[in-house]
């Protein structure tokens, strides 16, 4: 393990994070708020960044360092993001700040705040900016803006990019990262413009665009998107949520006019069918509450998009919806968005591979000597990929269950313990009952909050980069 090199990379990332804090600082100054929380944080983070980045090192970077660096960077990022919150004095404890910061960077959107609107604008801006940075990935950003990362940077981005198969858009990693971030920025700005046109104040438009882009779900209003009560805003956000939960390679294919390949994507089809199916099921289920077709569709569609993309915005308190709707939404939390998007969850392509492996297993029982390959997007998924997907899904469930076990120590109902673990690992945000759309995570113990923060990072990095950190063989010299 080349720790020095890992430290150097961590240092570079800290520099970027310090630079990112200049934006909320500017917002704070613009609204004549106290800039000191950001000044302190920038000073600390930048100093640490420059110190670490100056570590002299040899250039040996292998997959082990890549995974360990990613895990470490995200744990440190969680702490770094908490600094402005802590210095602002609006949070009860540092653990709360860490929870909020992890929830931001991992685009979970779960909050311990009871009255969001009481916080200064600069702090809320930082809270949402963490969504935006965490959505596409801090390291992807680093490879895009720091051309001289010098090391084999695809090890880093590979560990951070969601989905079972990692593929680049173009041969060069830095170029690939730049294309991703350009698409990301363009879509975000398009959403800001749409929201502004629909009557949202510019500041709110930015906050919600960040929340949508990273599929995070932090809002600056206590009632989330529901506070605006506007049909147009609901629809704009729903549509953009869908756009951000597609594989970004789709946009690259659109730009390079390879339409045929887009149509070949099984995952895209599966995702759209899941959204449509869930919307129809929930609409039928909740129609008696609203008894108006348009209203029913509006709430059902928004909520389905918000949950399957693992965003977690809400337009209404859906705790009062019937149990069947809750069950559908919980299933969507498992499934999650497409691979290569900014969303969380297990990812549609993994669910597809799971379904196809199950079908193959059944065929094998009936025809023991049959040979069958599993295909995804018209191409053969090699057995290594299939194996890792199945292990991933197993681990995913195991992590959720173990987290639920620890959280249940706090004495909440099983539904609360389980859905709060699920919502954290899947990076959704709201769960059911006490942690539902109108609730928050304030009441949990410090232990539970730390476990949940870790769960969010485990979910965001798709488990293994974090588990690698806890493996003894990572740290062994030989």
């Amino acid at each position, binding site marked *: 393990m080349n720790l020095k090199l890992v430290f150097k990379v961590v240092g570079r990332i800290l520099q970027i994070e310090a630079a990112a804090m200049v934006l909320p600082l500017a917002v704070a100054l613009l609204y004549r708020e106290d800039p000191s929380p950001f000044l302190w944080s920038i000073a600390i983070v930048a100093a640490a960044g420059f110190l670490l980045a100056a570590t002299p090192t040899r250039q040996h970077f292998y997959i082990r360092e890549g995974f360990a660096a990613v895990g470490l960077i995200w744990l440190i990022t969680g702490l770094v993001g908490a600094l402005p919150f802590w210095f602002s004095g609006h949070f009860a404890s540092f653990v709360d700040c860490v929870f909020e910061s992890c929830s931001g960077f991992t685009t979970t959107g779960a909050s311990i705040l009871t009255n969001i609107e009481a916080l200064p604008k600069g702090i809320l801006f930082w809270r949402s900016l963490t969504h935006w940075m965490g959505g596409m990935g801090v390291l992807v950003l680093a490879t895009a803006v720091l051309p001289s990362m010098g090391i084999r940077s695809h090890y880093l981005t590979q560990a951070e990019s969601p989905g079972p198969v990692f*593929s680049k858009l173009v041969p060069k990693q830095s*170029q690939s990262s730049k294309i991703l971030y350009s698409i990301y920025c363009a879509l975000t700005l398009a959403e800001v413009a749409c929201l502004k046109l629909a009557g949202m104040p510019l500041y709110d438009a930015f906050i919600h665009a960040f929340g949508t882009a990273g599929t995070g779900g932090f809002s600056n209003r206590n009632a989330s998107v529901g506070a605006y009560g506007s049909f147009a805003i609901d629809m704009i956000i729903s549509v953009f949520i869908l756009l951000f939960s597609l594989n970004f390679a789709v946009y690259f294919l659109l730009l390079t006019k390879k339409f045929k390949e887009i149509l070949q994507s099984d995952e895209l089809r599966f995702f759209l069918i899941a959204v449509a199916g869930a919307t129809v099921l929930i609409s039928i289920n909740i129609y008696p509450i609203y008894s108006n077709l348009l209203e029913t569709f509006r709430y059902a569609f928004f909520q389905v998009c918000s949950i399957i993309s693992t965003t977690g915005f809400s337009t209404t308190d859906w705790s009062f919806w019937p149990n069947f709707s809750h069950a559908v939404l919980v299933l969507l939390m498992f499934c999650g968005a497409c691979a290569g998007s900014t969303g969380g969850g297990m990812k549609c392509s993994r669910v597809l591979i799971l379904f196809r492996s199950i079908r193959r297993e059944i065929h094998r029982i009936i025809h023991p000597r049959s040979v069958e390959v599993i295909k995804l997007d018209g191409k053969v998924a090699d057995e290594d990929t299939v194996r890792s997907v199945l292990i991933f899904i197993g681990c995913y469930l195991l992590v959720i269950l173990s987290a639920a076990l620890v959280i249940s120590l706090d004495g909440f109902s099983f539904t609360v313990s389980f859905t709060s673990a699920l919502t954290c690992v899947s990076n959704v945000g709201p769960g059911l009952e006490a942690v539902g759309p109108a609730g928050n995570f304030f009441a949990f113990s410090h232990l539970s909050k730390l476990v949940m923060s870790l769960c969010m990072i485990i979910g965001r990095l798709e488990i293994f980069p974090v588990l690698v950190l806890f493996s003894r063989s990572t740290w062994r010299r030989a």
Partner: protein
Amino acid sequence: MKIVIVGNGKVGYSLAEQLVREKHDITVVDVREDPLRRAADSLDIMVVRGNGVSADVLREAGVVGADLLVAATNSDEVNMICCLTAKNLGTKYTIARIRNQEYTASLAELRRNLKIDTIINPESATAVEISRLLRFPSAANIETFCRGRVELMGFRLQENDFLVGKPLHALSAQVKKLSLLFCAVERGGQMIIPNGSFVPSVDDKLYLIGRPDSLDQFFRLLGRYAPKVKQVFLVGGGKISMYLASILDRAGIKLKIVELDEKRCRQISERFPRAMTICGDGTDQELLESENLSSYDAFVALTDRDEDNLIISLYAMQQGLPKIITKCNRENYAGIARSVGLDSVISPKFITASHILRLVRGMQNSQGSVMNSFHRIAGGAAEAMEFTVTASTRHLGVALKDLSLRPGVLIAVIVRGQDIIIPEGSTALQSDDKVIIISCNSGITGLNDIYAPERSASGTSGGQQ
């Protein structure tokens, strides 16, 4: 440039590695999953799995609008089809590796009919390289420029050479009169471009550039002039050996070829009746001894295994053979071999990759000047390039002492018409000159790249003696 490499074997990988370092966009196509994954893990490239003859696979790899396609799979036929398909899909330039001797006779037709721009045969290129080294045994390696009118050669300094311990400017008039230049020194794995005050020491590898007859004379002065090789001991009877044998046989050099496979031995003996073919294990020292190894002028180890080649070369060195050439494909082995005194280590993979690299550099360079030849010396630590000066080259007619060159760059030789000029401070470049540049940093693609970005008054043209 956008470059697609089909076939991720030894050459394909080594080429991708080099080209990535020069900041090109590389896509590698192969049918095998494992080597592809290894390539994607260690290089910043894109990989596509599939057969290079399929138009769909090639399209996915981005050959439409690509600048270059290199087909280096292990099948000549696949390489040919691949180049043809790519060309029809809109690739600008195609290079195919074709190694079967049956095709060698009709290369020109193949090139024309299949629209292949360049055909590379690694084995034959390696054989040519070896024959060049055998023709001039004093040097550890040798490269030619301007159709052989200028030669660059490297040799290692020994304890009682008169060069040791004296600065270069203090050399005797006899040496200074010769038309040659000490253009680079490899010391402890580092490249140095020497100036007049440079003091050579034992075990330095010096690189000399100049007219072949001057170099000859220099080696005579040094007392190292080895007469031409007359008998060569060859171990291994593979493709390279066949090409090499036919070159050496034509030059009237006596050959002894040791090969393990009896059938293969028969074929060799059928093709080269004058050569002596021995069927036996070339790694067996007893066999080598009984075949009178120590009486030969040169030894060439060409078996399939790098390890065997190195060991038997060391054995030959111990037996006191004046010239030993070792084939070794693994770069890390080559470094070790050099450190124990095996100077002439050659790698077919490296030779092929250098060849293609030269083409790429030439293509990349759109203005300024045309690159005529390109050689990597000292295991790739420095490069020697030949350019033709054109009207668009900057600073024409300015004396070299008034120019500031990039650090690590040296103008070694200027060929003007029939004259071969070793430049001095007052020499100036003229249009239509051929210039040979030595550079320690990679990435010079045109003559205009040799100038320092900002002009400073203190610049000189480097180490002229």
